[in-house]
């Protein structure tokens, strides 16, 4: 993209490229996560084969699924608040698109380069709560209402540890800009040795663990899936949805898993960069142009590793009870992340 940007593209062309890139960055991780982890890994962990008929090893199953969902009748309950019922999945999907806009994929391959990018990401990620809450309310169904209320309670409880865990990274990097955080990690050094840069997962291990737990809860994946608990609430806030609107919730959930993994990769694992010392780079400007091609691939690899962990946990653990879930957020994660902030600040000032 840098080569293209170097010849001064007009704004509308840049925008089209960015929007296309953003769409790919939402749909590709979602499709990959669903096929690789949800279809295949889950099946092997449960001693079955998973989809095998559509294409080699069921590789075209996703297209078959989309075709199937397209043909389903679009049902809605008679008493539902129809307008709100219909826009709720769109709100969830929009939140994912707004979230991906802030992820950097290379020195010039970014969508937006906010000074307060971390702040923006944390703010936008909570828009999906609105979608879930209005979906639960508008369905006029007791299961949906309970699911929506549980989702709201859970999402606001786990929003806090997530925000507080990121502050440690901001303290270390001294910036809220994603690009500067990535550069600070790759140009950093550990006690004078710069062989692997300084990915913050090493110094912010506690922050990373809290962040991943909070992501798991924000995505309502299994240890924290009280809002959609199949065995008691049918499908929670999604109970009344059918056809393509249901699929949009589904896409939104897994696309958000991918985007959160991308953000975690940028914040804790060094993002698109490779340790700058390997090629003798020292700052953003000296990074070679080919990083714009390699960067997205590195980001994708890290995304697959992190979302693999999310899904692995999802397939392995039973769900928390609602009160345990709230207790865990308020009595464990928040105090620990506040202490983590202070410890990071003290070490930063001391060294």
């Amino acid at each position: 993209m840098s080569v293209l940007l170097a010849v001064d593209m007009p704004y509308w062309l840049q925008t089209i490229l960015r929007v296309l890139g953003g769409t790919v960055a939402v749909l590709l991780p979602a499709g990959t996560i669903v096929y690789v982890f949800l279809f295949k890994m889950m099946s092997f962990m449960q001693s079955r084969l998973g989809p095998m008929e559509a294409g080699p090893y069921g590789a075209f199953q996703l297209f078959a699924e989309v075709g199937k969902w397209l043909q389903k009748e679009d049902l809605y309950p008679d008493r539902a608040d129809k307008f709100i019922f219909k826009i709720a999945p769109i709100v969830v999907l929009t939140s994912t698109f707004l979230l991906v806009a802030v992820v950097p994929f290379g020195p010039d391959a970014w969508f937006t380069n906010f000074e307060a990018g971390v702040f923006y990401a944390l703010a936008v990620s909570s828009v999906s709560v609105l979608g879930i809450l209005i979906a639960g309310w508008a369905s006029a169904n007791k299961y949906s209402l309970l699911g929506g209320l549980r989702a709201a309670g859970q999402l606001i409880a786990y929003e806090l540890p997530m925000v507080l865990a990121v502050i440690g990274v901001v303290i270390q990097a001294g910036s809220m800009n994603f690009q500067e955080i990535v550069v600070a990690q790759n140009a950093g050094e550990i006690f004078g040795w710069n062989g692997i840069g300084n990915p913050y997962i090493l110094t912010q291990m506690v922050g990373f663990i809290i962040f991943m737990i909070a992501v798991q809860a924000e995505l309502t994946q299994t240890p924290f899936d009280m809002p959609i608990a199949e065995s008691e609430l049918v499908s929670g806030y999604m109970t009344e949805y059918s056809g393509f609107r249901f699929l949009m919730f589904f896409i939104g959930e897994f696309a958000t898993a991918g985007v959160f993994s991308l953000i975690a990769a940028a914040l804790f694992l060094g993002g698109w960069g490779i340790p700058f010392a390997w090629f003798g780079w020292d700052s953003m400007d000296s990074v070679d142009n080919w990083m714009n091609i390699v960067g997205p691939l590195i980001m994708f690899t890290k995304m697959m590793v992190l979302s693999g962990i999310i899904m692995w946990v999802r397939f392995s653990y039973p769900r928390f009870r609602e009160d345990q879930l709230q207790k865990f957020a308020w009595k464990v994660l928040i105090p620990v992340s506040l202490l983590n902030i202070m410890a990071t600040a003290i070490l930063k000032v001391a060294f």
Partner: protein
Amino acid sequence: MSEFLRSYQTVIWFGVVAVLLASLLLGLASLVRPVKPNREKQLAYESGVDPVGDGWVQSQIRYYVFALLFVIFDVEAVFIFPWATQLERYAGFGLVEMGIFVFVLLLGLVYAWRKGVLRWI
């Protein structure tokens, strides 16, 4: 237009594209899907039993206090972020200041904890 506003414009385009993509797919679906509504289909789903009463039932919201606490801590996070970016400049002074700030907030959490607000009633 400045780079700053450009970024926000890109964000707006992302939102527009999300809505367009969703509408496009829903429009495509409306061409191929059957539309045969009847009363049974449009009943609220309650595991096969006819729904009793209204869907908008009153239920006990046990965690409204959590919501209030959430607002307090979220505003706190807004204050901590700018400090975090400038810590290098403030050094020891900023550290002590923020230590007091976080201590007071922890005190608030401990108070809520002792009052039994964090318990599931």
